[in-house]
């Protein structure tokens, strides 16, 4: 019976997904737990911070600047209709701080580093380097995963601030040079718009996103099977899953923030 076959298929898929979620949660728990246990690999953490943080600065600068710019471009016209052009700065900075800087930075870093982690760890799995590490008495979670998680969380936090700043600057550039607005007015409205609730929201999100990027990247890398092809598959899955999770978590966090800090 086709209906039965389909329901069986659905059951299996759901089962497999639940199993993966359970595995992932355990993996995250192990990663977090390893922060509190010796030994700590600070040198590896530093290398990863450089790779993830410093390495991502150019793309984050470009993304931030042009996103701010396009926000100013799009909003200027519609705000002008209501004679509200003076609010361009406010619109740009609010959008950047609350949503776009964390999410876009997260997606950029996910594309760059979740894939990198998955392919690096995946190659190590298929060439038995992870087993070799365990055979030499090193816990790969401590040596490979924990430094990446720590570095990504810190790096994403800082990169988001970079994106916030560059976004506001990009908006200013467009407002002043293309829409011929007053620069002072722009920055004033941008600055005044930001209340602590927005800051908290904007700076909490990257902490979650950084955790998602690194744990998903490492998780798919560590459970790679099936040779080189498996590494490719793990890489793609890591980027897809971490991107979707970032956007979904963004929604949840925004909801929670609205509930914690109701708009006055």
């Amino acid at each position: 019976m086709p209906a039965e076959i389909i329901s069986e298929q659905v059951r299996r898929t759901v089962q497999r997904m639940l199993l993966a979620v359970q595995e992932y949660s355990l993996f995250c728990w192990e990663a977090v737990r390893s922060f509190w246990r010796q030994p700590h690999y600070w040198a590896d953490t530093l290398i990863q911070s450089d790779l993830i943080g410093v390495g991502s600065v150019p793309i984050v600068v470009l993304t931030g600047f042009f996103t701010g710019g396009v926000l100013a471009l799009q909003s200027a016209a519609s705000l002008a209709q209501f004679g509200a052009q003076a609010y361009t700065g406010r619109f740009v900075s609010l959008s950047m701080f609350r949503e776009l800087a964390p999410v876009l930075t997260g997606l950029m870093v996910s594309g760059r580093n979740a894939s990198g982690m998955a392919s690096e760890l995946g190659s190590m799995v298929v060439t038995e380097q992870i087993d070799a590490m365990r055979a030499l008495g090193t816990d790969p979670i401590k040596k490979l995963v924990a430094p990446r998680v720590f570095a990504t969380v810190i790096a994403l936090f800082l990169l988001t601030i970079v994106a916030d700043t560059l976004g506001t600057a990009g908006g200013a550039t467009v407002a002043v040079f293309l829409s011929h607005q007053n620069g002072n007015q722009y920055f004033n409205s941008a600055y005044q718009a930001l209340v602590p609730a927005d800051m908290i929201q904007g700076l909490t999100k990257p902490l979650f996103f950084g955790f998602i990027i690194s744990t998903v990247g490492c998780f798919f890398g560590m459970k790679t099977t099936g040779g080189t092809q498996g590494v490719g598959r793990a890489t793609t899955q890591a980027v897809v899953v971490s991107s979707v999770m970032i956007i979904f978590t963004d929604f949840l966090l925004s909801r929670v923030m609205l509930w914690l800090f109701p708009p006055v």
Partner: protein
Amino acid sequence: MDTMSQPVPESPPAEPAVDPVVFEHVSMAFNGPPVLEDVSFRLGPHETRILLGPAGVGKSVLLKLANGLLRPDSGRIFLFGEEITRMSEEKLLALRIRTGMVFQEGALFDSLTIRDNVGYQLIEQHLPDEVIDKRVRRALRFVELEHTFDMLPSSLSGGMRRRVAIARAIIAKPELLLYDSPTGGLDPVTSHTINELIVKERDVYHTPAILVTHRLQDAFTMATNVFSEATNQMEPLPTGQTHADTTFLVLREGKLVFDGSIRELIHSPDPFLQSFLA
């Protein structure tokens, strides 16, 4: 001898000798038919056991079970007298530090130099750089690859990588060695060099070992040669003699079908063993 200045605890000969590896009724399956079924054997102190069997029979799996890289479905495994079957990974890591393993494909860390690969365990112990350098050079000299010190694994040949893997496994003076097909896919000359290294490790340091090999020739070489420190070479034992502590295990379709000396192996009437030896 000045015995007073020596701290007493860590003097191995004083302890009653435990068998480094014991398998008791071990079974193991991945998603499918069992790979190993009811495997029992023990590796005595100072013993070398050579594990033979057709490709895909589960030799690598058995080796990974021995140091807890894999966990059996049933049965019990003891490493240095401690049951590791359900031991936490954290405790296992501490036990594994006392073992050395040579993987089938070498499994060198491809982003680290040969120095950092070989010295991995010493770096983990935060020894001073000069000490690490010195000991790495000594280990590399043991495998005759001192000139590769600063190279990356990718610029080495297969046989060289295998020898570096041996250097990495022996540098911290392990109490147990696990060799997975150290001569697999190598030419006879390189194989001979590697066999000699393994025999040297066996006869000079008396490290107990389990060695997987496809090449019957290598297995016989191990059993009929001894390392002479005088000439720094492997030398054949007088005809008819075999190395007493080198014995054989044969796996067939997941079962251990042979456990004994080379003489028993050669004279076994079992048709499978005969065809395997042929």
